[in-house]
């Protein structure tokens, strides 16, 4: 049974974090870093899909492999010139869109549910590579694909029905 008592880890975190609030400037730096990582995650996915190593990518965009490693580690900032080089080098394009934080919460939640089920495989069949996904709830989908509970999934706006 779950008790309301805090576990030792929670107590230790509470104790250690009491005197160390995160400053606004530090928070902004963190957000900037995460923004960079969002771009880099896409680059890594595309590179992996195409079997391009870090070294090969560095060669394609005319930077040193160690520079790319430093960027991935967060030790060097990623600038837009490098991003443009990556776009050309990998023959890809970053799609930029702004999103409501409320929708973003759904997005993360759905991503988790997505990873936890076999829906990923099914939805991938409908991904035509444009990368534009909308959040929609589909009642009854669970029965068709054998998932334990009703889940929300991403489907493309152009697809009205999913045949499973």
């Amino acid at each position, binding site marked *: 049974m779950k008790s309301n008592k805090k576990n030792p880890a929670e107590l230790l975190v509470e104790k250690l974090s009491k005197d160390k609030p995160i400053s606004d400037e530090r928070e902004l*730096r963190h957000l900037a870093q995460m923004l960079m990582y969002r771009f880099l995650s896409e680059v890594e996915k595309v590179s992996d899909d195409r079997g391009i190593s870090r070294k090969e990518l560095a060669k394609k965009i005319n930077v040193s492999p160690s520079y790319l490693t430093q960027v991935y580690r*967060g030790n060097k900032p990623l600038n837009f010139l490098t991003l443009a080089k990556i776009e050309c080098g990998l023959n890809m394009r970053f799609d930029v869109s702004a999103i409501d934080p409320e929708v973003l919460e759904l997005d993360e939640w759905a991503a*988790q549910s997505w990873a*936890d089920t076999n829906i990923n495989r099914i939805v991938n069949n409908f991904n035509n590579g444009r990368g534009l996904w909308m959040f929609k709830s589909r009642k009854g989908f669970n029965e068709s694909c054998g998932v334990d509970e009703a889940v929300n999934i991403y489907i493309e706006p152009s697809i009205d029905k999913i045949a499973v």
Partner: protein
Amino acid sequence: MFAVDQTMISVIIPFIMDDNVIDEWRQIRDLIFQSLRNAEKYLKCDVSKVANNMFEMRFTNKRRNIRIYCQEVRTSKTRYIILCELFDKKSTDIPKSVKNRIEGYSKRNYEIK
């Protein structure tokens, strides 16, 4: 969701909450939360073939090379990442004692409290 192996709480929590580490910890935490891929920060652990459910977090800022080995457990609803072992990597090879400990952690069945 993150959890810490009970035997390692007093080592791992103070480390990740340290003022010099907490920024990097928050980055790794958010990379995982946002399902972002970054093989320099969080990746499948290649220390042993036996420990195939183990992952590693890499803390490399400020010329460190510290790793936290984690066991990943997925249930139908939640992805649990259990922080198990902290290791300050100083050479290319991982010592056998650490390798054995990682294999030991990979076999543990955790009860989340």
